């Protein structure tokens, strides 16, 4: 009987010999009027019951991804002498922000099978179901979105961006750009050995507009008529004000 119970426990807790204990410098990013990007420090430790196993060292991968949305990628071609959008591919899910930080080159710390399973690398994080029949090279469209968003720092690949101490302590810093969308930013930590994920952990960073930003945003959505009238009132008042100032000073 006891033997069965031990066997059951062994099965129920398979190989979680190494686990993540995590800390974030902030689990909330507040977008205020003067918001100009933010750094988030992600740090943690590996908890283990047994001594550090022999073999390849422990590697750490940290990803932060913003809310996903569907986007349309269009490609221009020259027709009748001018550049016109011809082909379009709809990408079902592309995160508005995505950063991958690793403790060594990504290729060395993660094999393709595990990447496919956990959707870790940037191309895997983007989900494109299918391109229309007319488009032969759908991959070029996915590459285009990665290229364009990498250029604006919305997608970041930070190889060697995670520092690991004595295979136990790790930390990285992720820079969130100024052009940030509101929402839950899913933060994942993967521990890998020889390219295989041995443990993963997930938490989230809450990105929210606060104060004036929050108030205006909510108003524009919930009482749009009032918001529109307020915009017009400000415009008229400013126009009249400037005219009055110039008249008073007889400019």
């Amino acid at each position, binding site marked *: 009987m006891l033997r069965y119970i031990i066997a059951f426990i062994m099965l129920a807790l398979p190989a979680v010999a190494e686990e993540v204990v995590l800390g974030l410098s902030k689990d909330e990013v507040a*977008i*205020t*009027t*003067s*918001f*100009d*990007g933010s750094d988030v420090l992600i740090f943690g430790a590996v908890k283990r019951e047994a001594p550090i196993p022999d073999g390849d060292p422990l590697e750490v991968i940290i990803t932060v991804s913003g809310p996903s*949305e569907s*986007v*349309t*990628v*269009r*490609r*221009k*071609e*020259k027709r009748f*002498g001018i*550049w*016109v*959008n011809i082909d*379009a591919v*709809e990408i*079902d899910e592309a995160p508005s922000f995505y950063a991958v930080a690793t403790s060594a080159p990504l290729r060395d710390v993660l094999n393709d099978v595990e990447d496919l399973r956990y959707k870790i690398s940037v191309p895997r994080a983007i989900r494109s179901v299918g391109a229309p029949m007319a488009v032969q090279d759908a991959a*070029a*469209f996915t590459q*285009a*979105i990665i*290229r*364009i*968003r990498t250029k604006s720092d919305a997608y970041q690949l930070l190889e060697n961006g995670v520092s690991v101490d004595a295979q136990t302590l790790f930390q990285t810093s992720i820079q969130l750009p*100024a*052009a*940030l*969308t*509101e929402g839950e930013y899913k933060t994942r930590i993967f521990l890998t050995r020889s390219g295989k994920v041995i443990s993963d952990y997930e938490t989230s960073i809450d990105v929210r*507009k606060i104060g*004036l*930003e929050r108030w*205006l*945003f909510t108003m*524009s*959505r919930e009482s*749009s*008529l009032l918001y*529109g*009238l*307020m*915009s*017009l009132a*400000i*415009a*008229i008042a*400013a*126009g*009249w004000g*400037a*005219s009055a100032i*110039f*008249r008073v000073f007889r*400019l």
Partner: protein
Amino acid sequence: MQIYLPIAEISVNAFLLLGLGGIVGILSGMFGVGGGFLMTPLLFFIGIPPAVAVATEANQIVASSFSGVLAHFKRKTVDLRMGTVLLIGGLVGAALGVVVFNYLKAQGQVDLLVKLCYVIFLGVIGGLMFIESLNAIRKTSKGTVPKRKKHNWIHGLPFKMRFRVSGLYISVIPPIIVGVLVGILAAIMGVGGGFIMVPAMIYLLGMPTKVVVGTSLFQIIFVTAFTTMLHATTNFTVDIVLAVLLLVGGVFGAQIGTRIGVKMKAEQLRILLAIMVLTVCGKLAFDLLVMPSDIFSIAAGGH
């Protein structure tokens, strides 16, 4: 100083926006154009999403036009009667324009059509105005007085009305048609339409240049206010923080521009407007003809 825009969801430099608003405001006061055809492409360029740029720009035009029109009221250079007739046409046109715009959107390619519209209209209007005002300047420097308004077919139409400020006694049909056409184009191109209306008033209706500017501004206020409300309630794309930054610069610019405009000769004013229109046209044509730096572009949302 960086400021985060709540609707556009990007962070931009506040002084840059104040400066842009000021420059466009000066041009607006000088020429009686809303300045949308200059400001909207500039906003795209600094990274404001197109939908937000177009909607917010409409709100800013309300402010600078209002500021400008007050200065013109003081100088009695607004033909209210003509403005009202044009406005009636303009609102009808704007409503029609929205229908046309949605139809084009369903067909795709709306971006291209808007750009082609810009190139064609700016090119034709700018070119004609440039040639005409160059001739006018040449004539005045030779000493011959420019002849004002000969009789043409427009004077044969019914429903005549007296427009005292403009010194005209013409049928209301041409101004209404001009209003409708400008309204349609304004809705499609996302601008106030001043750059089309000003030449139309000068060349088609034969109004004196001094009156044209104030009257055009008067009409633009109402058309853009209508557009702002439409965008705010249906697309939620009016960014009030962006609008405030632009219009603070814009209203002061408009006051300065009006004063510069009054001191200038009509031909000079027209030739400057022509040059400006042609420059924007050239830039847009260049973008269509030359291979873009990235042939791929991303648009939010699926089909």
